[in-house]
């Protein structure tokens, strides 16, 4: 009979899951985490995390810069009224207070954002906040700017935050989201940039014990938008739901990278990103990483990306990566697809009098609508559908815009 030998798994420090590498180091685990720009090399296309990005179009974000400060930030309730009870808004020197408390920058552009900005906007949420909070980020020109936002929800908080971006901008943005135990929070990020805007963002997300976070990203415009999201859990029974929608026009590069880390037992994550691409040179990238560390038994994770290519000449890159270091889990699934708008579907709709451009819109609206319906927070889903309809109705006749709005 073979001698039983006790195996000890390394146990990660919940405050710093990267302090101790897994027994078999995972590729994402040894990535640098640092506030110092020079701890990261200059990006190039040979590096895995930059291989899909047209880096020559965003190289102004690779070294510390002096921000213009021109970006206009307005914070109110979503109906425009003053901030409700339980919401505290403050400006702090970057690095002070809650800023810099959620993990550390994970790539060079994130470190550049941290070191370029002077202040952080901190939004603290406490208690039951009925109406969503709206953070409006209005780009006011093409001078480089930086914006750092911290969203911190206390234990047991119920709150929704919508961050809307529009206008012309070249913006480096850092967002820290931390939610307390037993909280239920949604954060929604909408990018409705002008066609020449550049937006390089990083989200660092910490989901509290027994808390749920619905994190949604809707990117509908911009010359180049790259959003990297790194998340971990703060305790058992965390529930993360990430949803993404993107619409890519000719020549645009829209990139979303989701990095989910299951570092506590019995947490659940869902990542669903859907994109539509239209026209020559439209390029989307979705990279979804999910890491399940050895100390996270009972993990339930799933990630999915669907792309709908409406016209020839568009490119959709889709890359799910799973690293599973614990066999005792409920599930770790992934799915990815790139499909074309079918000629037979188009003909069917056309044969009912619907012109080609309308037919495409109808299909795209349906494609996204299925996802938006899942949000389950009417104030958010209605807002998102309105944003999507506004995008689809660009240059639309009044009668058809009405039909789209009425559903």
């Amino acid at each position, binding site marked *: 009979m073979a001698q039983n030998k006790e195996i000890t798994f390394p146990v990660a420090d919940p405050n710093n899951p990267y302090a101790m590498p897994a027994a078999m180091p995972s590729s994402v685990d040894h990535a640098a985490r640092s506030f110092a720009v020079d701890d990261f090399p200059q990006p190039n296309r040979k590096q895995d995390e930059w291989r899909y990005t047209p880096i020559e179009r965003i190289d102004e974000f690779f070294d510390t810069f002096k921000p213009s400060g021109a970006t206009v930030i307005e914070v109110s309730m979503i109906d425009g009224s003053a901030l409700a009870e339980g919401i505290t808004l403050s400006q702090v020197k970057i690095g002070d207070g809650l800023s810099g408390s959620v993990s550390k920058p994970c790539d060079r552009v994130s470190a550049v954002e941290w070191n370029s900005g002077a202040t952080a906007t901190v939004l603290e949420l406490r208690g039951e906040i009925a109406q969503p909070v709206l953070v409006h980020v209005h780009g006011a020109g093409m001078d480089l700017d930086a914006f750092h936002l911290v969203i911190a929800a206390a234990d047991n908080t119920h709150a929704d935050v919508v961050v809307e971006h529009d206008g012309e901008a070249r913006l480096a943005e850092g967002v820290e989201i931390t939610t307390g135990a037993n909280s239920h929070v949604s954060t929604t990020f909408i990018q409705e940039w002008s066609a020449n805007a550049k937006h390089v963002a990083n989200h660092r997300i910490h989901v509290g014990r027994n808390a749920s976070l619905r994190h949604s990203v809707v990117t509908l415009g911009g010359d180049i938008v790259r959003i990297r999201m790194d998340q971990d859990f703060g305790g058992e029974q965390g529930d993360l739901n990430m949803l993404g929608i993107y619409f890519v026009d000719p020549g645009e590069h829209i990139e979303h990278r989701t990095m989910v880390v299951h570092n506590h037992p019995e947490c659940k994550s869902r990542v669903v990103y859907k994109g539509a691409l239209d026209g020559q040179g439209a390029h989307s990238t979705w990279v979804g990483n999910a890491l399940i560390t050895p100390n996270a038994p009972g993990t339930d994770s799933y990630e999915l990306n669907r792309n709908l290519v409406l016209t020839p000449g568009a490119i959709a890159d889709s890359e799910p990566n799973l690293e599973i270091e614990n066999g005792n889990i409920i599930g770790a699934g992934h799915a990815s697809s790139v499909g074309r708008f079918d000629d037979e579907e188009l*003909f069917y709709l056309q*044969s009912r009098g619907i012109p080609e451009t*309308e037919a495409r819109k*109808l299909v795209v609206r349906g494609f996204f609508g299925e996802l938006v319906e899942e949000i389950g927070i009417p104030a958010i889903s209605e807002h998102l559908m309105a944003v999507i309809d506004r995008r689809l109705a660009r240059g639309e006749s009044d009668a058809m815009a009405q039909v789209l709005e009425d559903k």
Partner: protein
Amino acid sequence: MSTLEIKGLVAHVETKDGIKPILKGVNLTVNSGETHAIMGPNGSGKSTLAYTLAGHPKYVVDDGEVLLDGQDILKMTPDERAKAGLFLAMQYPVEVPGVSMTNFLRTAKTEIDGQAPAIRQWTKDLSAAMKRLKMDPKFATRSVNEGFSGGEKKRAEVLQLELLKPKFAILDETDSGLDVDALRIVSEGVNRAKEANQFGILMVTHYTRILKYIKPDIVHVFADGHFVKTGGPELADELEENGYDQYLPEGADSESALA
């Protein structure tokens, strides 16, 4: 009163084996209120005729013209043909995931009429039409044709026929895949729509059973890419009796061999 004139229509399809001619000189005139049955063996080009009239990109027109009240629809895109008054009820209606029937129908109605229908009247018309076709109200919220059974898809086609009120309706094997009850409901729907709007019907069919419900004024035999015989309703009975073999070109596969 409208007229649909097909004159010398020649069309082909490109296959991996090269160009395959299908329509070889089709001539036909249909007036408002008339019901024409187009019958013929498998592979004769009946369905191709239907899809070519509707403007399916797979079929390339080489010659001829199709005039709807004097306007050549062959120069139009499929949606322009629909707006001009043509409707094709398909043998295999296409599933469009994510687009609800309600939204689809209302968008189509808006395009065809050039203005959005008044919402209250539209909702009333839609639910009444669905009720007459014995369709579950839940269909309205489902995606276009997605997960519909064969019979449900055909009812949805007739529903559109009733709501969109075309000048000419082409029914491509609308009877296929229907059980007796569904065939009766669908046929009644077609008759009701015709009664209301007095459109002309081109009914492509393989079997005579639908002709018991939708009475044709004129019956045509279509073989090898063109009309070979035209007669009254009695021609259908003769076909039922004797089959299509006599109309097949010399050396062609017989009907049974194809089946």
